C-alpha cells in the first residue's frame, strides 16, 4: 500500500485542487480565445479539449466505424481515470469548476452538499447508453450532452458575443459622453480588453438563446443539489465513473465511520450509498472529506485488488449504482431514443435531413451528421461569422451543426480555418487550392428582384465581389428603354448571370447585394447531380 499525502504536508488538498481547477479553466478559456484569427493563422491545438474527451472520441469512432487518429489523445484521460478514478471531474473539467465556483450564487449560498435524493442518479446512465447506441445509428447525441460541447456552444453562441456587445456599449457610451479625463483612461482599457480578453470581432449567432438556456438550466440545477449535472446527468462523468471502478485506487476507509458521518455530509457529489459506503463511480477525488475529517483518518491510496478483497470493510466501496434491472431499463431508453427519431423521420413527422449549405470540405449528408460533434469550433473560428448553427431545418438531428448563411457572412476565398479546427474530420482540412474549387452551393439570380432585370437599373455589385479569378458572374449588355424626366430613352445595361462551372457558392454575391431583404442573387444547395463532383480529402 502506498499512501498519498498532501504534497507539502501542511497544505490541505483543497488548495492544490482549486489551483489545478483554476489552471485548467484558464487553459480552456485561453484555447477558446485562441480559436479566432488574430495573427497569421489559428493554432491547430485550439480543439484540444474535444480531442481529449473520451466520450466524444468513442461516439465519433462508433459513428464513423473507424479509428480516428486525432481523437486517440483521449486515451490520456482514460489512463488518468484508471490511475486516480474520476479525478478528471474534480480537478480538470472546466464545467465542473464553473459549477463549483458559480453554483453558490445559484443556490444563494445555501448548502446543498451531502447525498440528498438519489432518484435522478440513473439518468446519467440512460444518457450514456443513448449516446453510445445512437452514435452508430446516425443519432450523434454526444453534441448535446457532452460537457465540453455544451460549454463551448454556450460560450461561442451566447456568452462571448454578449460580453463583447456589453463592452462595446459601455465603452462606446463613455467615448461619446464622458469627459476627456475619463476617456484617457477608458480608451486604453478598452483597447487592452479588445486585444486580450474580448473576442476580436462582434459575432452573432442564430438560436443563441437555446445554448444560453441549456447552460442556465445546468447552472440553476445547482439549487437542488451541488454538482447536480455531474451527479445525475453528465454522460462523460458516467463513462469515467464506470472506468473508475476498475481503478486500483480508493479511499481508506471506504465507509463513513459509525457515529460520525461527516464525509457523507461534506461530499459535494453525494458519493455515498445507503450503506454509507463511498461510490468510486461518483467520487471526483475532491479531497474535501480528507481535509475535513475530524479524526484525520481518511486518505486516498492505491492498492492491489487482492488487498481490497482482504479488507472488505475498509477498502470495498459501494456497488455499481445501476442494478441489472436498471441497466436493462437504461438500454431500453438508450435504444428507444434513436429508434424514435428514426421512426419519426421515416413517417415524415420530423423533417428529413435536407441538403444545406455546409462548410467547404464538409463530408456529404449523413456522413457529416454522424461525425460532427456540434462542438461549435468551426462557427467560432469563421472569420465572417457566416457559419451559423442549424436549428431544426435539418430535422431533429441537425441541431447545432454548422451551415453557411450568406446574408450574415460569406465564405472568404483565401480562408480554410473551419477545416483546420474541426476535431473529428467532419469538415476535412482542404489545401487552399482545393478549397477554392470546392462547391458549397451555387448562385442563382432572382430576376424578379435583381435590379438590372426588375428595375432596369445598373448595379452588378455581385460581379464586382466575385472572388473567382475569372468571375463566376458573367455580364450581358442589353439595351432597355427607360422612362426619364425628359421622356423615354434607351440605355445600355449590364445584366448578370451565373457561370455554373466556375461558381463555388461562396455567397459573397448574396452577401453584398444591396437589396434590403431578400437578395437578388442567392446561394442554393447543389442538387444531387452536382454534389458528387466535389473533391474529398
Amino acid at each position, binding site marked *: 500500500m502506498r499512501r498519498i499525502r498532501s504534497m507539502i504536508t501542511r497544505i490541505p488538498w483543497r488548495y492544490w485542487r482549486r489551483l489545478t481547477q483554476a489552471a485548467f479553466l484558464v487553459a480552456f478559456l485561453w484555447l477558446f480565445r485562441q480559436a479566432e*484569427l*488574430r495573427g*497569421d493563422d489559428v493554432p491547430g491545438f485550439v480543439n484540444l479539449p474535444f480531442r481529449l474527451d473520451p466520450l466524444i472520441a468513442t461516439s465519433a469512432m462508433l459513428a464513423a466505424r473507424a479509428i480516428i487518429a486525432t481523437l486517440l489523445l483521449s486515451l490520456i484521460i482514460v489512463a488518468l481515470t484508471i490511475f486516480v478514478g474520476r479525478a478528471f471531474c474534480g480537478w480538470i473539467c472546466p464545467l465542473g469548476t464553473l459549477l463549483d465556483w458559480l453554483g453558490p450564487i445559484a443556490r444563494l449560498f445555501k448548502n446543498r452538499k451531502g447525498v440528498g435524493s438519489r432518484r435522478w442518479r440513473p439518468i446519467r446512465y440512460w444518457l450514456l447508453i443513448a449516446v453510445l447506441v445512437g452514435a452508430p445509428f446516425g443519432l450523434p447525441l454526444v453534441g448535446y450532452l457532452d460537457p465540453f460541447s455544451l460549454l463551448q456552444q454556450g460560450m461561442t453562441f451566447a456568452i462571448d458575443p454578449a460580453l463583447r456587445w456589453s463592452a*462595446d456599449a459601455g465603452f*462606446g457610451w463613455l*467615448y*461619446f*459622453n464622458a469627459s476627456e479625463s475619463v476617456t484617457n483612461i477608458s480608451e486604453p482599457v478598452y483597447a487592452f480588453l479588445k486585444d486580450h480578453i474580448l473576442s*476580436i470581432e462582434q459575432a452573432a449567432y442564430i438560436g443563441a438563446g437555446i445554448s444560453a438556456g441549456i447552460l442556465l438550466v445546468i447552472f440553476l440545477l445547482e439549487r437542488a443539489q451541488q454538482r447536480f449535472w455531474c451527479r445525475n446527468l453528465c454522460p462523460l462523468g458516467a463513462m469515467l465513473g464506470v472506468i473508475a471502478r476498475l481503478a486500483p485506487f480508493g479511499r481508506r476507509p471506504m465507509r463513513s465511520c459509525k457515529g460520525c458521518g461527516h464525509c457523507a455530509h461534506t461530499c459535494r457529489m453525494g458519493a455515498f450509498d445507503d450503506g454509507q459506503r463511498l461510490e468510486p463511480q461518483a467520487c471526483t477525488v475532491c479531497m474535501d472529506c480528507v481535509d475535513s475529517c475530524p479524526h484525520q483518518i481518511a486518505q486516498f491510496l492505491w492498492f492491489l485488488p487482492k488487498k481490497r478483497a482482504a479488507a472488505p470493510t475498509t477498502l470495498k466501496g459501494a456497488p455499481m449504482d445501476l442494478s441489472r434491472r436498471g441497466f436493462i431499463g437504461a438500454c431500453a431508453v438508450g435504444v428507444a431514443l434513436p429508434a424514435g427519431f428514426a421512426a419519426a423521420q421515416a413517417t415524415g413527422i420530423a423533417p428529413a435531413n435536407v441538403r444545406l449549405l455546409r462548410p467547404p470540405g464538409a463530408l456529404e449528408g449523413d456522413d457529416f451528421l454522424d461525425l460532427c460533434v456540434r462542438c461549435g469550433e468551426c462557427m467560432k473560428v469563421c*472569420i*465572417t461569422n457566416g457559419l451559423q448553427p442549424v436549428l431544426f431545418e435539418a430535422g431533429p438531428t441537425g441541431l447545432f451543426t454548422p451551415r453557411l448563411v450568406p446574408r450574415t457572412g460569406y465564405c*472568404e*476565398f*483565401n*480562408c480554410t480555418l473551419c477545416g483546420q479546427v474541426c476535431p473529428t474530420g467532419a469538415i476535412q482540412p482542404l489545401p487552399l487550392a482545393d478549397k477554392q474549387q470546392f462547391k458549397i452551393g451555387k448562385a442563382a439570380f432572382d430576376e424578379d428582384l435583381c*435590379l438590372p432585370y426588375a428595375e432596369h*437599373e*445598373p*448595379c*452588378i*455589385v455581385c*460581379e*464586382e*465581389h*466575385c*472572388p*473567382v*479569378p*475569372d*468571375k463566376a458572374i458573367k*455580364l450581358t449588355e442589353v439595351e432597355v428603354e427607360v422612362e426619364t424626366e425628359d421622356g423615354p430613352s434607351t440605355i445600355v445595361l*449590364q445584366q448578370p448571370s451565373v457561370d455554373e462551372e466556375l461558381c463555388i457558392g461562396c455567397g459573397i454575391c448574396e452577401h*453584398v*447585394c*444591396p437589396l*434590403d431583404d431578400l437578395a437578388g442573387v442567392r446561394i442554393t444547395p447543389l442538387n444531387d447531380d452536382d454534389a458528387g463532383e466535389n473533391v474529398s480529402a
Partner: protein
Amino acid sequence: MTEESDVNRRQFLEQVAAWSAGLAVAAPVFRIASAQTPAAGAASPVLAVATGKDYGALVSSVLEPLGGMKAFVKSGDRVVVKPNIGWDRTPEQAANTHPEVVKALVKQALDAGAKEVLVFDRPCNEARLTYKNSGIKEAVESIGDKRASCPFLDERKWMPVKIEKGKVVKEWRLYGDAVKADCYINVPIAKHHGVGRLTLGLKNVMGVMGDNRGKIHRQLGQSLADINLVIAPKLTVIDATRILLRHGPSGGNLDDVKVLDTLVASADMVATDAYATAFFDMKPEDVPATVAAHEMGMGEINLEKVKIVKV
C-alpha cells in the same frame, strides 16, 4: 477651401461630435459647405506623371512639380492617407494600392510635420486578411514612427453627413477620421471596374462610406461626385505602378495585371482620373464619375487645359 473655413469646419465638427450620440439614427447631422477642390477655379491645374522602378523615390519625384508634400501637409496637421485596401489580394495581383507607394507617402507626410498620419480603409473582404495580405499594414508599421498607424475601423466613428449640393446623395454616414482630417490624401490604384468602367480617384472615396454602399451603384457616377464634395482630397496620387486590366475590381488572375511603374499626381482629382483612362485605351468621357464630377465644377476633365508635367 480657404484656411479659415478649414479651421471653422474642424471646430464645428469637434463640438458637435462631443455631444452627439453618433450611433443613434436621430443623431444630429453635419452640414458641411460643399468644399471645392483647390484646383477648381485655378487657372490651369498641374498634373505630374512619373515613371520608375523605385516606388519610394517615385513618390518624391511625382510630388515635386506640385510643390512637394509641404504644399499639402502643414506642420501639426492630422493627415489621412487613404489607399485602396479593399481586397484580400497580394500586391502582385493589383487589387490594392502598392504598399511601397503608401509607405513613401506616409513618410513624406511625417517629414512635412504631420501630427498624425492615419492609413485605413473599409475593405470589401474580411479586414484582418485584407490589411495583412495587401502588405499595407506591415508597410506603415515598418516605418516605426508612433505618429503613423494603420488601424482597423472603429465602429463608433461613423457620422452622418449632409451633402447639400449633392444631386443624388443628400446624406451619408462617413468615417469620422476622414471627415475631420486636416489633409486627406487620396491614393487609389487604377483598375477596370464593371459598372463604373474604371475605378480611379473618385471611386476610392467608397472606402470611407458606411452603411450599405452597394446602393449607390444604381447611379454610381453622380453618387461618387456627390460624396467627394464633402471629402475633397487635397492631393490625389493614382497608383499605376501596376494596373488591373480585366475582372476588376477584385481581380485575382495575374494575367489581368499590367506593370506600368507609373504614378499620376495632382491636386485636381478629375484631372488625374481623366489622365489615367489612357492606360486602359479609354477616353476621359468614358468614365461616368469623371464626367459627373467635372459637370459639378470639381475639376478639369479636358486634358488640354491641364498642365501636364512628365518627370
